[in-house]
């Protein structure tokens, strides 16, 4: 008998782009709301951003089912954390938890590309970028997903982060004001939408500050 499903894969790529920028007292997390497979658009209004805690927001692209599963695991783990510690998890703690959660499935990974944004214990903005198996780094800005190859060099050009090898450790937060950071995010997404078919429809922007979270929406090209 011949093999019937040699090409079957447990994964799909639903596209999407995530960007986060850390400032001195804010963090901007943004993602488009398109969900696609191949040449088809499955939804023009599917949020990729998930609020995990008061000061930690996760934005993920990749395979929607895996992203959803990952978000649920983190949500449950955060509930347990709150029961045990009587407080919300901090963003750096959530970053480590996300890394562990991804590495736990090292040999059948979540097909998810994550950017975690939030505020650290000092109230400074922080951004963590990940690969699919949990290796992560704290950065000043980050981009993940289908449009990241277009966006990342542009952000590097505009923001120039200090080398992580420098000693003593340099502060990687961007010097931009909150309004400038939001404008930059809008610009990079407008540009990425021109060239990446998996990015478009709408841009969802979350701005985290010590006094709360603001959400903004911007239209992107629908073609």
């Amino acid at each position, binding site marked *: 008998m011949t093999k019937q499903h040699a090409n079957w894969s447990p994964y799909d790529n639903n596209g999407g782009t995530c960007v986060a920028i850390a400032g001195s007292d804010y963090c901007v997390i943004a993602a488009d709301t398109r969900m696609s497979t191949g040449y088809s658009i499955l939804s023009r209004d599917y949020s990729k951003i998930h609020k995990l805690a008061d000061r930690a927001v996760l934005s993920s692209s990749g395979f929607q089912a895996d992203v959803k599963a990952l978000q*649920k695991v983190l949500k*449950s783990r955060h509930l347990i954390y709150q029961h045990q510690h009587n407080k919300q998890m901090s963003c750096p703690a959530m970053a480590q938890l996300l890394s562990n959660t991804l590495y736990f499935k090292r040999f059948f990974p979540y097909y998810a590309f994550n950017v975690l944004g939030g505020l650290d214990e000092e109230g400074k903005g922080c951004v963590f970028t990940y690969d699919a198996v949990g290796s992560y780094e704290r950065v000043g800005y980050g981009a993940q997903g289908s449009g990241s190859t277009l966006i990342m060099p542009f952000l590097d050009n505009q923001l120039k982060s200090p080398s992580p090898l420098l000693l003593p450790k340099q502060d990687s937060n961007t010097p931009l004001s909150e309004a400038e950071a939001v404008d930059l995010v809008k610009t990079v997404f407008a540009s990425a939408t021109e060239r990446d078919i998996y990015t478009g429809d709408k841009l969802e922007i979350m701005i985290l500050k010590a006094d709360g979270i603001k959400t903004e929406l911007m239209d992107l090209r629908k073609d």
Partner: protein
Amino acid sequence: MFRNQYDTDVTTWSPTGRLFQVEYAMEAVKQGSAAIGLRSRSHVVLACVNKAQSELSSHQRKIFKVDDHIGVAIAGLTADGRVLSRYMRSESINHSFTYESPLPVGRLVVHLADKAQVCTQRSWKRPYGVGLLVGGLDESGAHLYYNCPSGNYFEYQAFAIGSRSQAAKTYLERRFESFGDSSREDLIKDAILAVRETLQGETLKSSLCTVAILGVDEPFHFLDQEAIQKVIDTFEKVPEEEEGEGEAGEGEAEAAEAAPAERGGGVAGDQDVAPMEM
């Protein structure tokens, strides 16, 4: 030293059909400081007496949040209560993970009762020495359950467990018929007054009790000390006031609900007997 020759093992029956070890566990519930629960159609209030082991120590926590829609008050061995509330929390989290909907209170209570029952049928285990008042809100409304070490559980309109709880029960029995329509403020006041009944002479202070509430559009939370003290002040200054209100209760419908639910099998027929006394 021993009461008789049938009480050294959990699984050994006495010729009269009793399990003494299980009854001793229910005795532990009576020794613990009092816990009280009462509900209206939309809210559940849990309250307890804070008793410190010594002058130098703090008191032990006796009310636990299980989830936004479920809370539990315990009397008896607090260590056992902590273990069981941890179990309830994980049951609730697992349920919302699998079904993306809140765990119905009745289901949680059955799981809890089954867990307690297992301990009454295994020679290498001991029954949990704790009684739990489980309050919760689900699609069928607000509920209050009492779970006891024997594995029995009952649904109540209002109930009190622990030391000197009889006084609180008497107070609640006098007033429960009006609880169905009570506002959350009245429910809190009745909870605190029921706590006062268990103190027997000791003056009621906010530091002496813990009160928690949950209900429609109100996730489980503890009342802060000032809020409790404010309620206490309303009746401690004019003690004759609450006597007048006591006659206000009416409505037959709740009377039936207050009787232990049918599931309690063993006590069918004598519904007036509290489960601990059976």
